[in-house]
């Protein structure tokens, strides 16, 4: 195994983490969009907002991390992808800006009209980014990116495979988000929301499964070599993905939620790794660009590997801390919620001076 292979694995792992963590945040936007207007539909929005708020920025950094690894380790392939697929990538970037800004702005607004505007911006752009990211991955998988790309191509990302892949990404994000939200609702003892997101998780699971099969079928025509590997050496992962999906649907139906989020994430990860294993060691299908000849010398690759080890030691514990605080509901602005039992019963260390003080004007 060469250094390039290791870095290829790191990149795939980074993509996986972005998909299962960042993807779920985008999926939250999908359910916000579909929640319907008006006060009756406030509950899902509040739940979605509570679960995304403290973590979305940290989850989003995986994308930046992936881009950096990609351009550092495989600069030739990076330049080719960014050139050929400039249009969907611009649109994905626009979605990222609008999603983040819309989400952050909505919190601070109090006028319903402006909350609607920013909320719809957040929700719609949450669909835009995964969709166009999906078309990008689909375009790469079908071999639509030439090695020495000099111009953007419309055909590259509007093939049936690429478009199906775009829809698959949206469905997968919605699926992950719904499954996570079922768990979140259950932890809060909110039966109505638990049932609400259970139905949606099941529907999204079926849709994502169907789209996966459709994308696979489309690949049969657009990139037979990759299809052969997906049904060949990557078959165990493809099967694992299917098993995970079915398991989640069944467990949801049975109302057993233990470990269900992990299984859902594993299913999505299996799809990504199935693609990676099937395509290995080609980086841009249809070209001679492989992991080992895409541009960076060994010095750079070794530096990336060391950097990633350091990164994991630093950010791993930090992420665990963030998620634990979040799951114990120690983060957030909701004052009505009760503290979980895990926290000592006495009130937080008094920031006495101001906590005890009477609010100014309320």
């Amino acid at each position, binding site marked *: 195994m060469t250094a390039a292979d290791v870095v290829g694995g790191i990149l795939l792992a980074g993509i996986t983490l972005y998909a299962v963590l960042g993807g779920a945040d985008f999926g939250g936007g999908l359910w916000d969009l579909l929640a319907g207007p*008006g006060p009756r539909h*406030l509950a899902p929005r509040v739940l979605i*907002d509570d679960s995304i*708020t403290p973590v979305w920025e940290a989850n*989003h*950094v995986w*994308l930046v991390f992936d*881009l*950096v690894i990609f*351009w*550092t380790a495989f*600069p*030739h392939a*990076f330049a080719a*992808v*960014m050139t050929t697929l400039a249009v969907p*990538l611009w649109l994905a*970037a*626009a979605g*990222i*800006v609008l*999603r*983040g*800004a819309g*989400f*952050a702005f*909505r919190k601070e607004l109090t006028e*319903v009209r402006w909350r609607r505007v920013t*909320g719809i911006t957040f929700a719609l752009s949450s669909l835009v980014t995964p969709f166009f990211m999906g078309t990008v991955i689909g375009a790469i998988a079908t071999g639509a990116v030439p090695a020495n790309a*000099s111009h953007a191509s419309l055909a590259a990302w509007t093939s049936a495979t690429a478009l199906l892949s775009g829809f698959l990404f949206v469905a997968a994000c919605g699926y992950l988000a719904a499954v996570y939200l079922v768990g979140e609702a259950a932890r809060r003892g909110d039966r109505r929301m638990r049932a609400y997101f259970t139905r949606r998780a099941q529907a999204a699971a079926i849709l994502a499964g169907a789209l996966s099969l459709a994308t696979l079928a489309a690949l049969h025509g657009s990139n037979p070599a990759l299809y052969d590997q997906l049904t060949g050496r990557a078959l165990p992962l493809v099967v694992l993905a299917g098993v995970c999906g079915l398991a989640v649907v069944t467990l949801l139906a049975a109302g057993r939620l233990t470990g269900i989020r992990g299984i859902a994430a594993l299913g999505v990860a299996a799809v990504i790794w199935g693609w990676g294993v099937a395509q290995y060691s080609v980086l841009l299908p249809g070209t001679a660009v492989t992991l080992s000849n895409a*541009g960076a010398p060994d*010095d*750079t690759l070794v*530096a*990336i590997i060391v*950097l990633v080890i*350091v*990164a994991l030691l630093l*950010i791993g514990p930090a*992420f665990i*801390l963030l998620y634990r*605080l*979040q799951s114990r509901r*120690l983060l957030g*602005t909701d*004052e009505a919620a*009760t*503290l979980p039992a895990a926290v000592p019963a006495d*009130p*937080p*260390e008094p*920031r006495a001076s*101001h*906590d*005890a*003080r009477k*609010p*100014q*004007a*309320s």
Partner: protein
Amino acid sequence: MTRVNDVMLLAASRAGGEVVPARAQMATTLGFHIILACLGIALPAIVLLAEFIGLRRRDETAMRLARHWSQAMGVLVAVGAVTGTVLSFEMGLLWPGLMRAYGAVLGFPFGVEGIFFFLEAIFAGIYLWGWRRLPGWAHWWSGVPIALSGVLGAISVIAVNSWMNTPGGFTQQDGQITAVKVWQVFFNHAAAYEMPHMILAAYMVTGFTVAGVYAAGILRGRRDRYHQAGFALGFVPAAVLTPVQIFVGDTAARAIAADQPVKFAAMEYVARTSRQVPEWLGGVYVNRRVYGGLKIPDMDSLLVGFGPGTQVTGWDTVPPAQRPPVVWLIHLCFDVMVGLGFGLLLIGLWALAAWWWRRRLPAQRVFWAAAAASGAAAIMAMECGWVVTEVGRQPWVVYRLQTTAAAATANGGVIASLTLVIVGYAVLGAATIVILRMLARRWRRGEAAEAAVPYGPRPVRTGEPASRPKS
């Protein structure tokens, strides 16, 4: 913060193809993001300072300021994170030639930056949303990594930009990078002065901006302790760092005279290599003449080598095609930056003098008007500095190794994306400012206004605790 994901390849125009719109777009997105980046680098430290005073002295006002700034930081961090990501995309979308040739070299500092971006975002999630439930000092400590990683992340990004000015640390054969010494890339020659210059700039921009907001309030007659403290917490660090910045900037200019003499020549209107070079204050260079400037004989030679006989390299040492475009823009931006820097120094000295003799801040309205403008002045100075270094490096993207034209995308339609970016960022910037102003109004009213809002999440109330958290 955050998102300090920026390499500084900038503006002005020349050459054909997509270079001009690509540069204009990079300039727009970067010029926008860099303001948020400054706030991301330095605002956490100022918020932590306020919270520290609040916790230590049980000072309600300081605590209230910390909470309010933290809420504003929530908005700024989000906008900074997403606009920084746009720059990551643009590295490939606008400059595929640069990434193809040098991605393997300049990628490493970006990777280091990635770690700090992670830490910043993770601890921002804890700090910004931990006000209600985390115990006081634990909450304070959760903010420390944000302040540290803001600075370290900025250093990593500046490593890339300074590498573009003084590239090194790699070997190249037939256009292929064959070996990279990553730490030589990171700590390249220009890094020694670019890094402190930008970090100080970030602290000045943030400090003066914060101070400016409260100075404007004081001008309108809000002379309460809240406004005084808000002003002081921003103003004092920024004013203290201003003379340091002037020293660093002066050192940097001298280093540029050695590292990038043509850039320096453009900054100072040195057309021919010579001794006893005059210093031009202002003035527009057209048709080999300077119109309207103030000429100080021998001053430039003095500044470069501490003696009037010092030889200063002119732009005549390279053929016209290798000289930066629009020399007057570079020179005037340089003068504006330096002039504003000294103006900010004067405001600080004024406050110092008043404190020295009267133990209080100046009472004159002129002082408060100047202080209210200090934030805008610091931002302007910082933006001008980036124009100087970026336009001054042209026509190169990697100094003497790759031209900006060779780095730019060949894709058409950059004009279209540029237009959308300008419109989109104008809306984004306006919305950010409107929302911050709205927050300020709500804080003044004591945020009694938000009742149940029937759409979206519960209203954010980090500004004021409505009641003690139940347990």
